[in-house]
């Protein structure tokens, strides 16, 4: 990694109906950069991947839904503080597109005020069975200020491009997370004790 580069870290969440290819999209993206990455779906809280732009490096901390979207029980803490979100639908399913629109609304209502949202129509390799037209999704994205791309996790088409576009659009300010400059995680267990 270039030492002159500034590194910015962002929390990115995946949203969308079950089985639209959220995890595959991320695995495709992360694997492309780390061939030695060992895949594990159980116990993988989130994955990390970096995107190098001209003068900056963007590190994504990518949160997967852990299956909590299945019964609509995704907790608000999941997208709390996220600076970026990819809302995924399956271009073969109108229902999944409707669901994606609901997620966009939820993010606009409850998410961080400046969240960058990307809409991804996945499974482009199966375009023969398309039910959601590109123009329709494109128009929705434009009206709502979203990035938009149709992707295929299978062929990798537009996967890196999607993350790069998000990386470009994210604001590169010194404090990348609300409040994070002053916050802290508990350090490891204490090593010494004194009273008062």
């Amino acid at each position, binding site marked *: 990694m270039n030492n002159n580069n500034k590194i910015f870290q962002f929390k990115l969440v995946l949203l969308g109906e079950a089985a639209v290819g959220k995890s595959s999209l991320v695995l495709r993206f992360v694997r492309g950069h780390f061939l030695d990455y060992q895949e594990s779906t159980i116990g993988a809280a989130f994955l990390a991947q970096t995107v190098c732009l001209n003068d900056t490096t963007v590190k994504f901390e990518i949160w997967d839904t852990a299956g909590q979207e299945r019964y609509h029980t995704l907790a608000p803490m999941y997208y709390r503080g996220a600076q970026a979100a990819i809302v995924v639908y399956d271009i073969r399913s109108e229902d999944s597109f409707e669901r994606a629109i609901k997620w966009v609304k939820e993010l606009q209502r409850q998410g961080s005020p400046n969240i960058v949202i990307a809409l991804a129509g996945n499974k482009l390799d199966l375009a023969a069975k398309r039910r959601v037209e590109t123009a329709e999704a494109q128009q929705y994205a434009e009206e709502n200020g979203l990035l938009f791309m149709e992707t295929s996790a299978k062929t990798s088409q537009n996967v890196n491009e999607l993350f790069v576009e998000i990386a470009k659009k994210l604001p590169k300010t010194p404090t990348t997370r609300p409040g994070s400059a002053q916050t802290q995680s508990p350090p*490891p267990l204490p090593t010494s004790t004194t009273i008062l």
Partner: protein
Amino acid sequence: MDEHYDCIVLGTGLKECIISGLLSVEGKKVLHMDRNGYYGGESASLSLDQLFEKFRGKGTKAPPTFGSSREYSVDLIPKFILSSGLLVKMLLHTDVVRYLEFKVVDGSYVKQSNKIHKVPSTDTEALASPLMGFFEKFSAKKFFAFVQDYEDDKPSTHNGMDLKKMPMKDVFKKFGLNADTIDFIGHAVSLYLNDDYLEKPAIETVNRMKLYAESMLKYKKSPYIYPLYGLGELPQSFARLSAIYGGTYMLNKPIEKVTFNDGKVHVTSEGETATADYVVADPTYFPDKVKKSGRIIRAICILNAPIPNTSNSESVQIILPQKQCGNRKNDIYVGVISSSHFVCAKGKFIAIVSTTVETENPEKELEPAYNLLGPIVEKFVSVTDFYEPITDGTQDKCFISKSYDATSHFETTCADVMDIYKRITGKDLVLTIHPNILQQQKEQQDEEGSEN
């Protein structure tokens, strides 16, 4: 959901979510349901509209002067996290700490002689503090040094006392401490709710003092940390842990029936029945299996200014020891948080006053605390029963948690979790540090090493 699980968990309060997470990580198949449409049960944090609706009736909305409703996450159960306490150990054991961000609480105050004083956080502050007279400080210093040096397995540090037998009041006597100092140590440092500890073996008080001191050392300002966006983030984070390890989550599930036969628990919701080897639940799911043992009053107060005499602190704890509030047996606590922890609109402060109910007019009991707060813009008062299970659950395979008590921290909450875990599995929960965190620490050290 018509399946068999190792465990069905009912209610998504913090205790239930920690247990769900621990069991899932161990490879148990867990189904976790809640009758509410949100996570957290009694330990949820609410938006302002939700708060008005809960206390003022359905359809009631917060007045616009409070700012946007969604800026608020108001805890129903007020607590702070001791930074060396059990909850932090659980967060490090499970690596759930990575889902959350914390900030230190600015200060801790204690009421004495009708004034509030900062609990000293450094030796310098201790010397300057008006909480003790000059000669008293000398005796107290000797006592604190004894506690600091005390080690269970080193009799040379015991000063000839057997703390496992000797009642705390005799230890105080031996060091010649006066009533105000004892009150301060017992309530502001050891965080006892009442004076029952004086008759009990001293070792517990000594351990509590050590915990307080360790917690204080971490971030210096106060021994407490608090998560951004409110305590409601805690159960959600442990639920995520459970889900990552395969736990199934369902909200909005009314529980119609729970029966116990052929060695299995049958749980019916919306006409479907799931079975499990055992069930874990909060007391509201089993009113027939719990007993009432006390009442707790909590008053959520919204203020337009910081608490007077706290140096404009954005977050504080104030302890009102029972003796400082007339004829009381239990301390009153005030926990204050504000927009610096992302729990309310800028310029607002949320003060939650709570205590164990002693009379038929519980709200009057809170008056000494109300008097410290300055003008109260809005107030939401609840009096809730404290429940505990009648049996330990090992016979009927129904493990029920206790209600959340009036303590100002999570030590008893976590102790209950550890106890339930032991009742279920037959083994102690050993709180290690998660390998991910050890790895991170190593990387950080390596980085620091290479910079030098």
